[in-house]
């Protein structure tokens, strides 16, 4: 007896077929190439734009110097804390360079260098970390959102801003930065999903620097790469060598172009490495070995570009020296700016809580004023 011959078998007893269903998009074009995209040291480097690369090089060297200076300032007690981006300068700088004036940058607490590369005065960029005030600049003036400390929470802001700009017919792209650890947060998911559903002109840049404080990527996610996460939202994911500024610039530019042209968001994972501790308060030897750090040293973003550009005759000793001198001047100005004691007004505590001060705050402000006056007289 065959199955068909069994009693009860036959078409009339089969449950009806569900309505036809098919996925809305072909996933293949959204999938990242699992090998990080590289330009430096490959054939693709033949088409480098010398002028752009000289600019990138100058910014990289300045960025490295900026990192060193900021770290030194923590040792002198001039900065309360500094999350270094040594090793990640190519990501920070490319993010700033691919944006037009009208575009917006949404940095995390680590991304002061991106803000500086976008043109923000370093002292203003470091206001938060210095403890003078939370945000040292007018976000609208520079189109740089306040540095976000709660992880990934700035990402939905980028989506909302880009969406609003598009509703108004303005040509604005938002670029939002987040760390590998931040991709585990709910806000990361919600932001990507909103951006894709709204086709908002946003670029999400994940700097996968290997660790979230002490926790390695393997304990953060089981995804093949973080760029793969894009597919689930219906946006393209790209994997790129985060130490290769030429590759970073190219991939980010392409995503910005796509967003500007109405093509919607992109998720970019930059594979890089945090060479220094999480902040000056962290002890990196507790969770990683020297060998790993040494291996990444050989893949340093500044040296990678310097080697390529020197070999191609795009820069020479004199140009390198000029760039270093310029970086040194920037560091001197930063030192000087930071060595001036910031003027803080205690009455500012109450000035910007509400548009109009409440009675409650007026009362508390009066109390503080009396205390200050008493101190002055003593």
């Amino acid at each position, binding site marked *: 007896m065959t199955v068909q011959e069994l009693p009860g078998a036959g078409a009339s007893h089969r449950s009806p077929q569900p309505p036809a269903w098919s996925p809305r998009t072909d996933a293949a074009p959204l999938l990242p190439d699992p090998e990080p995209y590289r330009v430096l040291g490959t054939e693709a480097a033949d088409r480098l734009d010398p002028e752009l690369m000289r600019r990138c090089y100058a910014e990289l060297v300045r960025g490295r110097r900026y990192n060193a200076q900021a770290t030194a300032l923590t040792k002198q007690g001039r900065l309360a804390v500094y999350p270094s981006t040594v090793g990640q300068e190519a990501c920070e700088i490319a993010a700033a360079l691919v944006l037009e004036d009208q575009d917006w940058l949404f940095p995390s607490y680590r991304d002061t260098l991106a803000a500086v590369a976008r043109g923000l005065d370093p002292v203003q960029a470091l206001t938060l970390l210095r403890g003078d005030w939370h945000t040292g600049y007018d976000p609208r003036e520079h189109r740089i959102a306040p540095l976000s400390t709660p992880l990934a929470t700035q990402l*939905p802001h980028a989506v909302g801003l880009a969406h609003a700009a598009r509703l108004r017919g303005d040509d604005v792209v938002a670029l939002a930065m987040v760390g590998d650890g931040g991709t585990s947060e709910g806000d990361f998911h919600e932001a990507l999903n909103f951006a894709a559903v709204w086709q908002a002109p946003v670029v999400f840049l994940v700097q996968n620097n290997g660790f979230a404080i002490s926790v390695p990527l393997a304990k953060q996610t089981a995804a093949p790469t973080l760029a793969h996460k894009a597919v689930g939202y219906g946006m393209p994911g790209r994997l790129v060598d985060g130490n290769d500024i030429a590759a970073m610039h190219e991939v980010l530019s392409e995503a910005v172009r796509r967003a500007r042209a109405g093509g919607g968001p992109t998720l970019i994972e930059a594979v890089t490495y945090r060479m220094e501790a999480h902040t000056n308060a962290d002890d990196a030897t507790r969770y990683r070995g020297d060998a790993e750090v040494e291996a990444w040293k050989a893949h340093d973003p500044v040296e990678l570009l310097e080697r390529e550009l020197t070999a191609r005759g795009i820069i020479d000793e004199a140009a390198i020296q000029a760039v270093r001198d310029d970086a040194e001047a920037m560091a001197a100005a930063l030192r000087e700016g930071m060595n001036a004691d910031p003027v803080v007004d205690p009455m500012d505590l109450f000035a910007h809580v509400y548009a109009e001060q409440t009675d409650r705050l007026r009362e508390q402000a009066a109390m503080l004023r009396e205390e200050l006056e008493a101190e002055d007289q003593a």
Partner: protein
Amino acid sequence: MAQALTRAMRDAMAEDPTVHVMGEDVGTLGGVFRITDGLAKEFGEERCTDTPLAEAGILGAAVGMAMYGLRPVVEMQFDAFAYPAFEQLISHVAKMRNRTRGAMPLPITIRVPYGGGIGGVEHHCDSSEAYYVATPGLHVVTPATVEDAYGLLRASIASDDPVVFLEPKRLYWSKADWRPEAPAAVPGIGKALVRRTGTSATLITYGPSLPVCLEAAEAAREEGWDLEVVDLRSLVPFDEDTVVESVRRTGRAVVVHEAGGFGGPGAEIAARVTERCFHHLEAPVLRVTGFDIPYPPPMLEKHHLPGVDRILDTVARLQWEN
């Protein structure tokens, strides 16, 4: 009240193209309580938007929209489903003006249907106001009448600061002699109102408990009590002067709200009244609140919610002889 709220959004949207309504089911459906009914049809889906189902994402996107100059009006579907958005609310919405030293105010209105008394199952009846009032940088308002629903929502949308607009669910269907053709003047945020004058004691309340207090005040007449009833309308800022002025006159006060008593707004109000009216008080300031329990199942909610009898029993204790 539902209609007045709808009308307030409609008028605001008609007057100001930067006003955008967004939330879960607010478009085609008009919201689960139909408060946004017709807005998508009249103003298009770009101005009244069905968002993905994600409260943090909704409020977070609203932050970005407000940064770009829009005035988002966000609907949180129910009190207890607003909690995923708390990080955005507390870390960004409430603080952006302050973090940027006034450079970046966020004019966002967050509408939250709150409170019980509608027979809702769990997670649909929380009185969440204590969480909001404890967060500096937010305004927190709650209308109790149809006119205030309109006026306060208009004022909230017009405010340059973020406002948590708490809508007492069980008053959605309350009717009153309100003619939408001639909406009452906007009362403004931060103004309490004496809803009933009296001489023996002051009931201080807001939102869903106002009708209960007014009913209790009527019933108290038989007991020889002439109760004044103050409707706060705005919890932040708290209109201390109106309250203090009333209590100094009556000499006795009871704070009434649905939210739990421990750490609830009533504790703060009672403390402030005591500080400022100490020599006028004939009795300690008492409170009638919901119990300090998770919101109970529908069949038990009547035992939890402050009702007329519990208010009258508390008022009786104000003689403070025993």
